[in-house]
């Protein structure tokens, strides 16, 4: 059953603008110029119950703005959305009780008191019955292995420990939909892995629908079978992560190890047409071939060269995404 339905959603911000310099600053006191920025343009998609969807795109693509509209924080300029049957920006208490948002760059835990006291206030705000509150807290604390953090003042916790607390704070009222905005921002690699494992397990246990934005591709790879790519506010791709890689980088990498005689000769071996040699390293060649040509070329290589070992791989997703975030983004709209 669809839990999130987004139709032609757009958001335009009106931002003040002025020329540099003192003169322009003085002028702007009396007459201010504004510029319209289209943060989100006409996007539509559907998310099913229990799905985990990754929102990806470079900085300023419109990911957070979309998330904030879906959580009811922002009113859209046009278009509509329904999340668990409600219009988010009407911010009805019954709706807000069923969603949650965890922001990697903002904290909802009170600084000077132990997290457990912040949790109690949140339980009160969300009207969670005491028994359910205790059960949920115990479950989350066990899953995140954070028993020892509960009674320390929050200001004495590390960034990763605080993030664990943020997740508990966001899940205490057992939301049906969870919006995660950069939940692993600034965390070390092992803490990132830890939180990813937690989110995956929590999704399985409770069937919570999650939308996640992250700049760490490892988050997306680990958690999201489906991704939505936004760029300049437009939805460019909606589907499986592997499909995105195929579209953006329609090639495969073939790694071939050859017999010693061939490699030490110095010259590159005779390669079939349509093959690009990317790297030559310690007896191993890395070749790039068109996605559809891969089977034929593999067969040719095996027939013509003294192959010791051969593997065919998709290009690493990081490299594909880098293409979007980097200069390659200019022509992205045409590619997809």
């Amino acid at each position, binding site marked *: 059953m669809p839990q999130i339905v987004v139709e032609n959603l757009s958001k335009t*911000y009106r931002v003040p603008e002025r020329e540099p310099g003192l003169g322009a600053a003085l002028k702007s006191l009396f007459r201010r110029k504004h510029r319209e920025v289209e943060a989100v343009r006409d996007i539509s998609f559907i998310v099913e119950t229990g799905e985990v969807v990754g929102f990806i795109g470079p900085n300023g693509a419109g990911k*957070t703005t979309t998330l*904030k509209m879906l*959580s*009811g*924080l*922002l*009113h859209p300029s046009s278009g509509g959305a329904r999340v668990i049957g409600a219009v988010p920006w009407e*911010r009805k*208490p*019954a*709706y*807000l*009780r069923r*969603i*949650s*948002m965890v*922001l990697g*760059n*903002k*904290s*909802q835990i*009170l600084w*000077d*008191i132990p997290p457990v*006291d*912040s949790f*109690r*206030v949140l339980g*009160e*705000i*969300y*009207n969670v019955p005491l028994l359910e509150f205790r059960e949920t807290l115990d479950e989350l604390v066990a899953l995140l292995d954070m028993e020892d953090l509960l009674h320390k*003042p929050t200001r004495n916790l590390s960034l990763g420990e605080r993030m664990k607390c943020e997740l508990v704070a966001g899940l205490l009222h057992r939301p049906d939909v969870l919006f995660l*905005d*950069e939940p692993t921002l600034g965390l070390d690699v092992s803490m990132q892995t830890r939180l990813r494992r937690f989110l995956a397990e929590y999704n399985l246990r409770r069937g919570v629908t999650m939308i996640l934005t992250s700049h760490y591709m490892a988050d997306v790879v680990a958690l999201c079978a489906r991704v939505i790519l936004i760029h300049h506010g437009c939805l460019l791709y909606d589907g499986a992560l592997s499909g995105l890689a195929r579209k953006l980088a329609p090639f495969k990498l073939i790694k071939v190890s050859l017999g010693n005689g061939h490699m030490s000769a110095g010259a590159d071996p005779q390669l079939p047409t349509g093959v690009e040699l990317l790297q030559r390293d310690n007896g191993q060649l890395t070749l790039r071939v068109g996605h559809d040509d891969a089977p034929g070329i593999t067969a040719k290589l095996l027939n013509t060269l003294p192959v010791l070992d051969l593997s065919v791989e998709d290009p690493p997703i990081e490299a594909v995404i880098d293409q979007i975030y980097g200069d390659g983004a200019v022509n992205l709209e045409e590619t997809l």
Partner: protein
Amino acid sequence: MRHLRLIGSFVGIAIENALAYRVNFWISLLHSLLSFGTGVLAIVVLFSQVEAIHGWTLTSTLALLGTYLTLAALRRLFIGPSLEALAGLDGEIWTGTFDFTLLRPVDVQFLASIRHWQPLVILDLLMSGGVLVFAVVQLGRTLTLGSLATFLLTLFVAVIILYALLLGFAGLVFWSPGFLFTWLFNAFFQMARYPVGLYPGWLRLVLTWIIPVGIMTTVPAQALVGGLSGAMLVGSVAFAAALFVAATVLFRTGLRRYASASS
């Protein structure tokens, strides 16, 4: 009932917070004593020169000071800390942490108004109560149940007016998030230390009906020491109700402008 429980939770948190920093207790005590001492001293010095000004004697002015100090304490107890947390460069609107207030399944205005408490301000409340009791005893007038009820009603009206003004100023931050609009209000609020009758005619009108600091302190003091007209009582109740509605509308209109801070 749920709202009361919520207030209880926030007060509990505030007490814990206050106890986390012991030095704050002493600073707060010093602040209370200073504001109490300077207030009383100024009036005592003034009335050592004259018997009465425009009908206001030392005792009735002390009753007014007691009312002023009570209001100032209530402001510092929760209205001020809660609403002022929205404004300024480290305020919740500017930094975007207001997101979390908006995400809660509780009325935003209610939550924004009762989240932060300064429990140590209870010391101020005790002192201001002391001034009021002292003034009543000095008046040598037995306090009737009626005048006490009228005083409490006008004090409630004063709190509503104070809250509405601060809510209105807080609402303006949605138009200009970095600016602390309450600075404007503070200058006028100081004038409520003295009876409005002391000010020249035009200023008296301004301080009664435009920036109604007069209604906030002079009216409750008159209820206590006598001299409050029925018309003024009804007028101030109506004024408070209108101001509350206007400030609520302004705050909620501002809310729609909230754009959240970028990630």
